[in-house]
């Protein structure tokens, strides 16, 4: 049997993005640096470093982030 249900709201949207993150030496762990960069765009849901450019000291990151404050 199926269940009927009410009007609970989860006002979120998901957004795909690609960005570059600096790969210079740092005391901050790399995971935290990437998540900090992603948080400028939303809450990180799923991400990965997809390429490393050692000449430019740069990482390519692809991600899906969540916006919590937008209506469904």
């Amino acid at each position: 049997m199926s269940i009927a249900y009410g009007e609970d709201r989860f006002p979120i949207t998901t957004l795909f993005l690609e960005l570059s993150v600096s790969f210079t030496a740092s005391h901050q762990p790399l995971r935290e640096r990437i998540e900090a960069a992603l948080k400028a765009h939303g809450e990180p849901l799923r991400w990965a470093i997809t390429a490393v450019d050692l000449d430019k000291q740069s990482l390519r990151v692809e991600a899906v982030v969540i916006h919590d404050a937008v209506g469904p």
Partner: protein
Amino acid sequence: MTQIQAPYTVVLIVPTGIGAAIGGYAGDALPVARAIAHVADRLITHPNVMNGAQLYWPMANSLYVEGYGLDHFAAGHWGLRPVCQNRVGLLLDQAIEPDLRLRHLQAADAARATLGLQLTDYVVTDQPLGVELRTASSGATWGTIQHPGSLLRAAKKLIHEAGAEAIAVVARFPDDEDSDALQSYRHGQGVDPLAGAEAVISHLIVRTFQVPCAHAPALSPLPPDPDVSPRSAAEELGYTFLPCVLAGLSRAPQFVTSSQGRSPIETIWADQVNAVVIPETACGGSAVLSFSDAATPIITVADNTTTMNASSEQLMIPAYRVQSYLEAIGILVSHKAGISPTALQPHLPTIKPLN
């Protein structure tokens, strides 16, 4: 022989949607998982490794952990508490047509009758989920859903009203049987076009409710193709990909958040992991970076090529770099036995003073 050392625990990761040569298709990293589970005391891995549509292989010492949960486990935020059985709640996308919905409900009933799994009553979302597929510039597939709120409302209903302890989601994915991506995938090449969106769906539920979750896509049956690759063939066997998901979730560990403390003695935490096995070019994920920060030994496998270009060497992550999973398993056996892998090679340099 009585075991007097801590259980040797291995994490096996084959990220989804990146065209992994082994594990990028229909549960085709499962033989690797079976082999590692045979030499390890505990294996922690994820649905992309374990799910072969109608095919699966239960292993008593393996823990089936969704990717978002695995990332938080690796970061030390969440622990894993093994269970005897979960009540699995089935969540169906409203966009699934009546005949296809019936096939999935019958798969659920079959799992109850034939495997003895415990399922709650099911829920249909109050809107079509609106799955959208996307391929990024790296070649990886990502994807989003138009109505994540509908997905989460349905999951909340299953958990809070039906008593579900794990969530099996079936979303209607676009049929695109003439696409080059699907044809390549069926022939054991390219990237799974559905995988990225599948991961987003399960990540949303695990992030919101901290319960085990996995996803099976609902698709119209494809016409027979004599050239289907063995690596993709498991998805040609029937009308649904749901059986493996239900079997995996039925014994998936529950998540223990840090705020709940570390008191349950049976809970497994990241600092109990002895080794991580990952494709060589896919070291840029959250879990691997967390394990690397904690100095957990990492073994990278070159044979398992992917569309990623983020190797342990490029990211300056210390690792055992091997060619094949057979070599990786050798490293695990050696490590578990307390034998340095270098001692098994012909040339062993002399000991040196510390500079």
